[in-house]
């Protein structure tokens, strides 16, 4: 489903080049539950952004469901972000001025779905993450855990096959973090492919496979089931 071959990513800041990824090979099959671990600066987030089409590789190949991502136009990439991949960020990245409902509705608007369907779907996913009673609250009126659940609901809105989460519990206390992880567990049982970046050994141990990164390279690819 996800297939990266010799992917490199180089950031250029002024005259300084920084090679974040130095030739990554990575595969994920449909329905897999994978954690990505590694020290800071090992390239975890960069890898995740490339998988989620938030960024493009400098070199190498990337096939998503067999289609070459490298050759896609910006509109095609936007459509993949909209429908194929749901992204959950460490910093939540909710629109601060919008309610939970409006935040979750954003990807549905870009998918050009009609109003009645959007409404039903937003309430559905908010209920799925346990926020049926916080539909009209703004992010400032929510706890960290609740904000992250809104973000997960938003990632789920367009029923993507893949959920990518970049340290989703990094900003949360352990109780809230535990709830978030339980949601991911359930989603995986429903058949979603889930890839989580984490520093937390407890989280990593729940996943099917642990991929270790070091200095922009895959140190260990874990065991394929």
């Amino acid at each position, binding site marked *: 489903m996800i297939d990266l071959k010799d992917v490199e990513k180089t950031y250029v800041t002024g005259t300084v080049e920084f090679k974040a990824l130095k030739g990554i090979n990575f595969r994920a099959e449909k329905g897999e539950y994978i954690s990505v671990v590694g020290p800071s600066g090992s390239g975890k987030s960069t890898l995740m952004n490339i998988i989620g089409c938030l960024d493009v590789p400098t070199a190498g190949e990337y096939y998503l469901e067999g289609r070459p991502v490298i050759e896609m136009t910006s*509109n095609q990439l936007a459509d993949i972000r909209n429908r194929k991949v749901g992204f959950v960020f460490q910093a939540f*990245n909710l629109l601060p001025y*919008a309610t939970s409902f409006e935040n979750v509705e954003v990807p549905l608007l*870009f998918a050009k779905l009609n109003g009645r369907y959007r409404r039903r779907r937003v309430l559905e996913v908010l209920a799925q993450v346990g926020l049926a009673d916080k539909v009209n609250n703004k992010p400032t009126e929510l706890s960290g855990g609740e904000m992250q659940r809104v973000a997960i609901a938003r990632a789920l809105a367009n029923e993507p096959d893949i959920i990518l989460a970049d340290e989703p519990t990094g900003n949360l206390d352990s109780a809230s973090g535990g709830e978030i992880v339980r949601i991911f567990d359930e989603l995986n049982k429903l058949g979603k492919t889930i890839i989580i970046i984490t520093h937390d050994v407890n989280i990593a141990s729940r996943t099917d496979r642990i991929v270790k990164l070091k200095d922009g390279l895959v140190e260990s690819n874990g065991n394929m089931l």
Partner: protein
Amino acid sequence: MVPLVSFKQFVNDMRRQKLRTAMTMFGIFWGTCSIVLLFAFGKGLTEAQLRSMRGMGENIAIFWEGITAQEYKGLPKGRRIHFTEDDVTQIRQRGQHVERISAEYISYDVNIKYGKQSTARNIHGVWPEYGPMRNVNPVFGSRFINDRDMAERRRVVVIGNLLAEDLFGEDDPVGKEILVNGVPFKVVGVMKKKQQDSSYSGRDSRAGFIPSTTYRSMHSRRYLNNFVVQCKPTSTMLQTRREIYEIMGAKYKFDPSDTKAMAVWDTTEGFAFLKTFFIAFSAFLVGIGVATLITGGIGVTNIMNVVLEERTKEIGIKMAMGARKSFILWQFVTETLLITAVGGLLGFLFAWLLVSVFPAFNLEDYVGTPTINVWGGVIVIVILGLVGLGAGIFPARRAANLQPVQALKLF
């Protein structure tokens, strides 16, 4: 084409970012309002000045008797040149450049009476052409002196609007009889109120006008006080003056180039000056307008830039959620256009409101009636809109061209 469904999001964004929207809108509002007002009052002032300049008459010159300053064909200098009504008739017959002409006799401080009201005002003996030429226009339901009045030496009088108020108060003077120096005259006309900023024998508003023939039959006077000439629209007053000097010079034997032989007040000279002055005044207003626009534009640009950081992140989030580039740009363009349109329209309406209530302050005699220039307003709104668009769309395009991860500042 982005479907209407995105419109909801756009409206949401506008509603959520009240302060930014309000500040930008206020910038446009204020710019539009001040420029529209500036031009409205500028135009009003200019027109009021020109109107009161025209109050005595347009393209007219007044001629008085003079004393020759040059010897001519054996005749000495220092001869007094008077004129009679016949001279004026002759000028009318022979003058190629003369549009209208009228003889004028004046009696000063004549006793005028109606019932118990009595006052002392000037009485002018004039020709029918005097009225339209000197802007002594009758109010509705009355008239100026006509040819039959002249031929039959009727005792009819046209009175100024203030003289009418002095004598009759609220009553309609037309058809009533007044006593001019004890002689009964019938009032046939009342002058329409007008602005008049210059005169040679008192304001027309407090004067009385009677046919010159009637005047002559009552006073044994041979010579006129003066005569008034209006030149043809196709001629210049200079040509007309030269022509009159030639006609009169031939008749009374003086050198047509002897300017002292007749005294003349050519009002077109002052008019020309005033016109030049107001062209300069308009240029000044345009200058202020441009400065105001630049200030407004800088304000709008500033506001757009202040929110750039916040917006870049927002753009990043939206792109991560699947927004296409075209949506981001479309949103910015529509947003700016809507803000500009609403702000501009409000500014225009506010200016219009101020101009509409302005007459209530009774200052029109001093600064004129401000007049709204719709196209000026539209141009101002368009310029401010373009400035806002430029200020908004370039950062938006830069952000939309980033990879989502860069806009989100995740790396």
